[in-house]
C-alpha cells in the first residue's frame, strides 16, 4: 500500500493487490483445468441437443401461427366487420348494463 497514492491513482496498488490475490487464491489449478477440458470435450447430452433446437422450434412455431392467423383473418373477411356501440346494445337486449346504454348514447366518432 503506497502512502503517496492519490484516491484516483491509475496504478494498481501492489500491497492491496497481493493481499486480495491471497484472499481469493483458488485451489489446485491443474485439477480445475483438467475438469474444464473434460467438460468441454464431453459430447452434448440428448437434452442439451433438444434444448439447442428448442429456440429454432419456438421461432418456427411463432411464424407458422402468425401466417395461419393472417390466412384465417383474410378468409373470414374480418377487416370488413365493424361493430358499433349500438350493435352491442342491440345484442345485449334488455339486460344491457346502464353503462353500455349510456355509452351508446354518445355519438360515434
Amino acid at each position, binding site marked *: 500500500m503506497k502512502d503517496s497514492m492519490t484516491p*484516483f491513482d491509475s496504478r494498481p496498488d501492489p500491497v492491496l*493487490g497481493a493481499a486480495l490475490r491471497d*484472499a*481469493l487464491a483458488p485451489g489446485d489449478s491443474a485439477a*480445475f483445468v483438467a475438469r474444464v477440458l473434460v467438460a*468441454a470435450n464431453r459430447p452434448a447430452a440428448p437434452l442439451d441437443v433438444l434444448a439447442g433446437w428448442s429456440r429454432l422450434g419456438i421461432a418456427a412455431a411463432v411464424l407458422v401461427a402468425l401466417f395461419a392467423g393472417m390466412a384465417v383473418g383474410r378468409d373470414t373477411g374480418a377487416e370488413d366487420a365493424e361493430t358499433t356501440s349500438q350493435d352491442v346494445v342491440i345484442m345485449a337486449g334488455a339486460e344491457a348494463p346502464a353503462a353500455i346504454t349510456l355509452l351508446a348514447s354518445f355519438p360515434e366518432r
Partner: protein
Amino acid sequence: MDEPRLAARAQAGDRTAFGELVERYADQARRVARAVLQDPDDADDAAQDAFLAALVKLKQYDAARPFGPWLMRIVANAATDRRRRRTVRRAEMLDEGHIGGGPQPDAIAERAVLLGRLRKALAELPERRRLAVVLFDVEGYAHAEIAEILGMPEGTVRSEVFHARRHLRTLLADWRDQP
C-alpha cells in the same frame, strides 16, 4: 504463441489451443468469480460455466482485441447469474472469534486472520465495486478495460475502485498498526 493466434486456432476448433487459453486464464477467472460468489466451490463452477460459454461464443470474439477482457466479461456474467440462481447462501463465514485481537501465535495465523478479514470486507462491498477493485488491483486491467468488462462508464469504474480501496485500505492499515 500469442493470444490472438491461440484464439483464432481455438475458433477453428483446435481444442489444444482452447486448453492453452484455459490454462492461462484459469486462476484469474476463478479469482474474479470468487470476488462475486465468495464460496470457492461456487466460484469454480461459475468459472467452468464461463469457459464452456466462451468456447461456444468463440466465433463472436474479435481477435483484433485483447482476449482477457472479453473472457472476464463472460466470467463476471456467469458468476452473477449463478449468484442470482443460488437460493441458499453458502458464503464462507469468518470465525468471528479471531477478529479484534486475542493472542496471535505466529505470522501464519496472523496472515490467515488478515485474509479472513479481507474476504469479509470484500463481501461487504457492492458486487460491482468488488469486481472493479479485483480486476484493477489484482488482475491489472486498465479502467477502460474494466468499463468494457462490467458494462459501465470509465468514470464509474474509477469511483468504484476508489471507494473499494478506501474501505479495504482502512482494514489493512488497522491490521498493520496492531502491536
